[in-house]
């Protein structure tokens, strides 16, 4: 734990890429295999299990201390993170640190315990206890740690452990230590490391996982569920000269598809079993039983890349993302939900065929094989466009001047834009610019008035960064008292650091009321909000729900009275709806 805490501190304290890779490589080279495997798991952000809630840790910290709850909460407001707040407070709560506890027991040298023991034994053991026993066990762990390690331990407890290190950097460091290609390492890491369970090869499971990860290349025999690393697209940027083609080569060298607004998925059929992976490398079989059942029709040794969408039977286009969200929230959906929000898998790539890795082959070849594979499915034979496994249509793009008209049809097709993929390209690992491009629709925009603000957390602790925006219920008449403002969206992103700081000062000096952590501010500042879509909602007071709202611009030039009204939002809703209603003849469908 000492070494891992030091690594955490180093990564936290340096911003240079090479320094971070060096620190990581030095750690991996020196750590025992079982510790290295756990560290890797943590660095990749794979430890999401919450062992103990932050709330419970707070309760344990406060129990038996003279610290009032409100003061803890004041501290939290300053720090923005429960794990860190406790780490900082523990020194006040437990001034006898390093000395015998009330029951005479000495603090144990827990900092010296290896990371794998912390992860596999000490933390889960404390989590498994209840009540006073648990509180005692947690305090015993805290007593054995200095503040830096205490912060790490608390974050491991709450499942909130994050280090701002990109996966690419971790892979570079691993590659440096092992001599293996980062892409091979990325593939071997897909689906996560098997860190717990029985001993393998008379080794600790985490140690065995580490050795398997770094084994020489060749003779790949991972678990049958293992997905491939996803190929990711980059946003298409407009050419410098509007007359230039947006991408090199003729339009015919590119394959155009809808950019679906669902979740990316990889559907695997191997060894008589089906597996559905999300882009976040979570196995989501349980949430989508109908897709796993449908995968049984695929020949063994098939891996499909595609999009999971909710798509009611017979509908022209998929349901809005909110419907899919209802499915994602459930581990095991009930019959009613399955009927109300039926899922489909819209495939657009074939990564493995007959057990062979097809990723090096050109997309045109993979696409042709995918089409014939899906056509052979019994369900597809009857209803080619309606099966649970269906093909994402290839859209006609004979020339570049057809690109913009095609993109404009995306909303009516229920898509959020276009994908453009180089027909000759292999299936890459991660986000490599050049072969896959996403060309989203322009977001919808409204000018809204800032009405509430709340402090953020983490890096934004103690700064007002979470904003609530409102629209006028009706157009404000000149000179007359303004009508009511109706809140309609929250946004957290889109402003730069300098603007955040400036707005923070403005909010502090223009607060008109406080509701706990929330401040109501004078309705004076106008912001242009961008969002991907909107739909009617009975849960929102405004009657509309917006998708992915963010701040596009601070409209300092605009007086609040000139912000948009609810009616203008409803008009956008009708535009979106009307487009959808008239979009029956979407190309390629």
């Amino acid at each position, binding site marked *: 734990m000492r070494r891992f805490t030091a690594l955490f501190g180093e990564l*936290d304290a*340096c911003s240079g890429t090479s320094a971070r890779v060096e620190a990581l490589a030095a750690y991996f080279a020196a750590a025992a295999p079982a510790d290295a495997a756990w560290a890797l798991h943590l660095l990749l952000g794979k430890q999401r299990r919450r062992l103990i809630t932050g709330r419970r840790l707070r309760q344990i910290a406060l129990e038996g201390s*003279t610290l009032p709850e409100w*003061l803890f909460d004041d501290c939290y407001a*300053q720090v*923005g993170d429960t794990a860190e707040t406790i780490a900082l407070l523990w020194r006040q709560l437990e001034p006898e640190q390093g000395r015998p506890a009330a029951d005479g027991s000495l603090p144990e040298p827990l900092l010296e315990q290896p990371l794998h023991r912390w992860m596999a034994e000490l933390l889960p053991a404390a989590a498994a206890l209840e009540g006073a026993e648990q509180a005692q066990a947690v305090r015993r762990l805290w007593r054995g740690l200095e503040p830096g390690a205490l912060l790490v331990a608390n974050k491991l407890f709450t499942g909130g452990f994050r280090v701002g290190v990109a996966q690419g950097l971790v892979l570079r460091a691993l590659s440096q230590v092992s001599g293996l290609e980062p892409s091979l390492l990325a593939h071997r890491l897909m689906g996560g490391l098997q860190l717990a369970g029985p001993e393998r090869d008379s080794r600790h499971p985490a140690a065995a996982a580490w050795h398997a990860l770094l084994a020489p290349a060749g003779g790949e025999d991972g678990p049958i569920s293992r997905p491939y690393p996803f190929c990711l697209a980059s946003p298409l940027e407009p050419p410098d000269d509007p007359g230039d083609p947006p991408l090199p080569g003729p339009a015919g060298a590119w394959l155009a598809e809808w950019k679906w607004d669902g979740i990316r998925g990889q559907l695997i059929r191997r060894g008589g079993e089906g597996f559905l992976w999300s882009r976040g490398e979570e196995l989501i079989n349980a949430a989508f039983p109908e897709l796993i059942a449908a995968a049984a029709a695929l020949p063994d040794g098939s891996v499909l890349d595609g999009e999971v969408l909710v798509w009611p039977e017979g509908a022209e286009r998929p349901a809005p993302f909110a419907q899919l969200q209802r499915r994602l929230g459930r581990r095991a959906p009930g019959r009613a939900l399955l009927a109300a929000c039926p899922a489909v898998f819209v495939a657009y790539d074939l990564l493995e065929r007959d057990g062979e890795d097809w990723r090096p082959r050109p997309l045109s070849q993979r696409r042709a094989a995918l089409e014939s594979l899906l056509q052979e499915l019994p369900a597809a034979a009857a209803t080619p466009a309606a099966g649970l496994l269906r093909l994402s249509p290839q859209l006609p793009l004979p020339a570049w001047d057809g690109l913009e008209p095609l993109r404009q049809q995306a909303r009516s097709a229920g898509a959020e834009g276009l994908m453009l993929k180089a027909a000759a390209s292999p299936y890459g690992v991660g986000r490599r610019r050049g072969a896959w491009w996403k060309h989203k629709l322009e977001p919808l925009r409204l000018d809204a008035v800032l009405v509430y603000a709340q402090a953020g957390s983490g890096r934004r*602790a103690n700064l007002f960064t979470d904003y609530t925006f409102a629209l006028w219920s009706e157009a404000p008449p000149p000179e007359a008292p303004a009508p009511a403002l109706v809140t309609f969206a929250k946004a957290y992103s889109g402003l730069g650091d300098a603007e955040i700081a400036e707005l923070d000062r403005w909010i502090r000096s223009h607060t008109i009321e406080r509701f706990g952590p929330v401040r109501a501010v004078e309705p004076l500042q106008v912001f242009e909000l961008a969002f991907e879509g909107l739909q009617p909602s009975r849960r929102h007071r405004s009657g509309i729900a917006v998708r992915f709202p963010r701040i596009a611009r601070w409209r300092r030039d605009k007086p609040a009275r000139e912000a948009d009204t609810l009616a203008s939002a409803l008009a956008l809703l009708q535009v979106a709806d009307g487009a959808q209603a008239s979009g029956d003849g979407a190309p390629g469908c």
Partner: protein
Amino acid sequence: MPLPAGSLLELTPQGLYCRAAAAWIDPWRPVPRALISHAHADHARPGCGEYWAIGSSEGILRQRLGATINLIPVDYGQAHRIGDARVSFHAAGHVLGSAQIRLEAGGESWLVSGDYKRCADPSCAPFEPVGADVFITEATFGLPIYRWQGGTAVAQEILAWWQAAPEQTSVLFCYAFGKAQRVLAELAALGVGQAGQPGAEGGEILLHGAVQALMEPYREAGVALPPTRPVSELARGESLAGRLVIAPPAAQRAPWMRRFQRPQTAFVSGWMAVRGARRRRGIERGFVLSDHADWPGLLQSVRQSGARQVYVTHGNSDGLARYLREVEAISAEPLEGGFSAERGGEDPDGAEPAPPAVAPPLA
């Protein structure tokens, strides 16, 4: 809340006022007579008729407020009769020449802490506990998450950080007046600047002009400091590898920084105790060292004052006052006014003059 009518001290638009002494303490606006706790810009402002301050801060005050100000230098612990009041200045341990100011008249005594800290600091006189009926304390770091380790330990961390990067320039951001000299004095105590040690002749610690301006008063006061040189005196093309540079935080985003190629940077401040505060500033490394009292230091000072009534200014004044009332059973109230309240992370010298948003003096 305002101070009770008829008290020894009252709050006026100019600041804390003692009618008996006809004097303001750290006034926000020009007044005829100012008692100055220390020379930071948010406590010592120009334009007053008469300044009373500790003698060792005279040089800095004249530098900042004008060479010709009418300044009456005083010593720690000495009692003065000003008007009808007995006034004494006591070491606050904040920066060179910093003082708590005690006022007594009509059988009532008040102690105004100014800014203070309780940790040892080789660059200034240590805090002197003083008793009074009423204590006005600052609470810049008035939350229990703030608990400082000693300056020596922090200086050791800074030294290790500097020495671990022999190829790079190490730029250390410190408030120019006080923090910079404290860090230098702590480094000197570790041997920095002595022959054969880092920072010795030829490899002197380099200073930004704003820090340089404060060095003379400290050296004059006999504070042991390592040899230093202003960055501006360096010859063109002189290597900066392995050198330590001390600069004020405002320099971080100034063109001045361009002369250093890929430096490692760190910020020395009590605010660095919180990760988010450091990350927000875009600083790689934070060293937690403050010239303000930490939570235990605030509580200790309140207890030692023996005051029956406490008023809290700056920072978390509400929280500390409530804690004193509810947990320590000490009568305490936050004192609203033009005390630069939410100044978290700002340079005390860079702070805007606080807007004097207080009620007119009580009749």
